[in-house]
């Protein structure tokens, strides 16, 4: 039963030209336009430059951070350090000669009180922020270990060594070479969320107050759950395949570097597709509003979510991260972008896992909410 309904659901969806255009063709067209528009930038900026950063150290400040920075500068490394005083550093930052300022103040601890000042939120600033964050985390961990398990201090030191190695090598070699790549991440996020139309179709064909087809289906001898599962599985499969086509097109035809963790990138788009489908399904399941109205709401949600993730305005994600971080935590497109970004920027999978967990949570909430609204539904009017 499941497989038969799954195949029919696939046939129905694939034969809907409009839905296939938006899910399959439109992202490819948009990707091509992006490539044409950013072509020169992408080609010019593939050569990685050191990040110039000012370093202002108070007297008596911990030397540990200065050593870390130095190790990141050596041998044409990640950073170009300019040691200076506060006033001069601010002036350099204002003139955009440095990407940020590290202040190291005397806090009376070995770790010191290190802060970062930036005026923009772009790739370089993100890397500087990541360096500081990792430094603080390592020191915090070391402090805990020395207090609670002094014997493990040697192993911990080894970890620090590995992380420092990552900052020097990993970031440079594996990082997407241009901020422009963010647009393509946002494009993939939008592609995943294009599934809202397919999700809405599922709800429309389940709500007897929205379509005659739904009436015939809900009065049939098969449970709603039995019809819903194949529908969802088929739509998710198709949306995922559409996104896969976009990824392959961008990578192999447009030659856009989306990172080298291809399997995880596909996993992200799969989860993103699930969120897109469930978002449409949820919107479709709400109330007794007309299908055309729900279609409008779906498109608005998808486009607004994509806008907030930086599809139309570059740097939107980072702007929100500074001014309204909660939006980035709950906006599906931002979470997809963050997952893809984390895969290729950060060592380890902590941020990636967090974003994926958030996406899955959203998917579960939307799916459960929608199903709760349609199960055993009796209508006040049809």
């Amino acid at each position, binding site marked *: 039963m499941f497989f038969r309904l799954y195949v029919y659901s696939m046939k129905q969806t694939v034969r809907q030209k409009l839905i296939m255009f938006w899910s399959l063709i439109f992202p490819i067209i948009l990707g091509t336009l992006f490539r044409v528009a950013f072509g020169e930038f992408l080609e010019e900026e593939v050569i990685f430059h050191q990040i110039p950063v000012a370093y202002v150290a108070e007297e008596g400040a911990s030397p540990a951070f200065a050593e870390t920075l130095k190790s990141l500068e050596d041998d044409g490394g990640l950073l170009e350090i300019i040691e200076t005083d506060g006033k001069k550093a601010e002036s350099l930052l204002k003139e955009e000669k440095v990407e940020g300022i590290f202040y190291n103040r005397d806090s009376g601890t070995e770790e010191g009180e290190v802060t970062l000042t930036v005026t923009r939120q772009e790739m370089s600033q993100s890397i500087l922020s990541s360096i500081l964050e990792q430094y603080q985390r390592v020191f915090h961990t070391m402090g805990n270990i020395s207090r609670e398990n002094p014997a493990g201090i040697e192993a911990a030191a080894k970890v620090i060594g590995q992380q420092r190695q990552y900052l020097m090598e990993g970031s440079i070699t594996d990082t997407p070479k241009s901020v422009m790549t963010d647009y393509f991440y946002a494009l993939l996020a939008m592609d995943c969320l294009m599934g809202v139309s397919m999700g809405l179709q599922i709800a429309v064909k389940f709500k007897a107050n929205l379509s005659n087809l739904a009436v*015939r289906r809900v009065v049939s001898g098969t*449970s709603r759950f039995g019809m819903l599962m194949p529908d969802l599985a088929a739509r998710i499969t198709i949306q995922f395949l559409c996104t896969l086509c976009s990824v392959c097109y961008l990578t192999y035809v447009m030659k856009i570097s989306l990172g080298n963790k291809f399997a995880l990138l596909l996993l992200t788009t799969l989860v993103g597709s699930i969120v897109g489908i469930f978002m449409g399904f949820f919107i479709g399941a709400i109330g007794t509003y007309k299908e055309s109205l729900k279609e409008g709401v779906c498109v608005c949600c998808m486009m607004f979510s994509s806008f907030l993730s930086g599809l139309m305005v570059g740097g939107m994600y980072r702007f929100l991260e500074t001014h309204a971080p909660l939006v980035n935590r709950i906006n599906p497109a931002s979470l997809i972008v963050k997952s893809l970004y984390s895969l290729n920027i950060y060592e380890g999978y902590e941020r990636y896992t967090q974003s994926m967990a958030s996406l899955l949570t959203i998917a579960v909430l939307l799916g459960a909410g929608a199903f709760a609204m349609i199960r055993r539904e009796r209508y006040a009017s049809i």
Partner: protein
Amino acid sequence: MAEHVIQIENLVKRYKELVALDHLNLTVEEGEVFGLLGPNGSGKTTVISCILALLQFDKGSVRVFGKEMQPDSYDIKRQIGVVLQNVAVFEELTVQENIDYFCGLYIKDKRERKQCVEEAVHFSGLEDFRKFYPKKLSGGLLRRLNIACGIAHKPKLIILDEPTVAVDPQSRNRILEGIQKLNQEGATIIYTSHYMEEVEQICTRIAILDKGRCVATGTKEELKAMIKTGEKIHLEIWELKPEHLEELRRLRHVYQVDYREGMLEIRCSGGKHNLVHILDYLARQEISFGRVYSELPTLNDVFLEITGKELRDSAD
């Protein structure tokens, strides 16, 4: 005592202030072709939606095959076939795929389903259109596909809600013959329509709904016996004075006389030789006339007399 296929007791359904079903009582027996008649807004589709557990209702009960009908009464639903007023098929699936899809919601066994689909295709005369998409079908073929999707699984109870709307006479005839055939094969049928001649042709028992109430139930003959009109006599007369109309009204058994555009319609409440008495009067008054014909009351007369002649334009 034999179980009713459908038993509706004291059903009340309100849409805010509007009472769509007003303490409705109805029973459908096994093997019947049960006609549900009523003007627009009388509650026909609402009754059907309540039977199918689609609509919430305020009061009363609906039992199908002896069991309370609920949205998850799948054991009951498997025995019901529904043909909706509006065509409900997948635009993206072919004729054969549509029938197979809906049949598959009831029948899991592949071989059995295949046979049912074949029979439904043959039943609805869609053999030459198996690979066609619905948008390529004419109105009549589309209606036949709609019916095929509803009956392919050979249900015991078939509910047809105005299945012949906007269908040409040939297709309509084929659909009606098909419904009678399904009934002969053992299916109980509930049939709603605005076409009185259809209901008269196929229904064994009829209920007339008006303003959410069942105002009359019975066989065609029983319903016709309920109304005042026993005979309608039509005469083509070119000129008739008001005093003649008044005298005609006074004839025995005549209860209504209408004269419009040269056509005189006289309704008699019963009795014999009404036409002879009328012709005799016209001869005595030396009134010349053309065509003359007499007819017995139709279901249409029953319907109009019971529900009234005012226009009903609210949604059903």
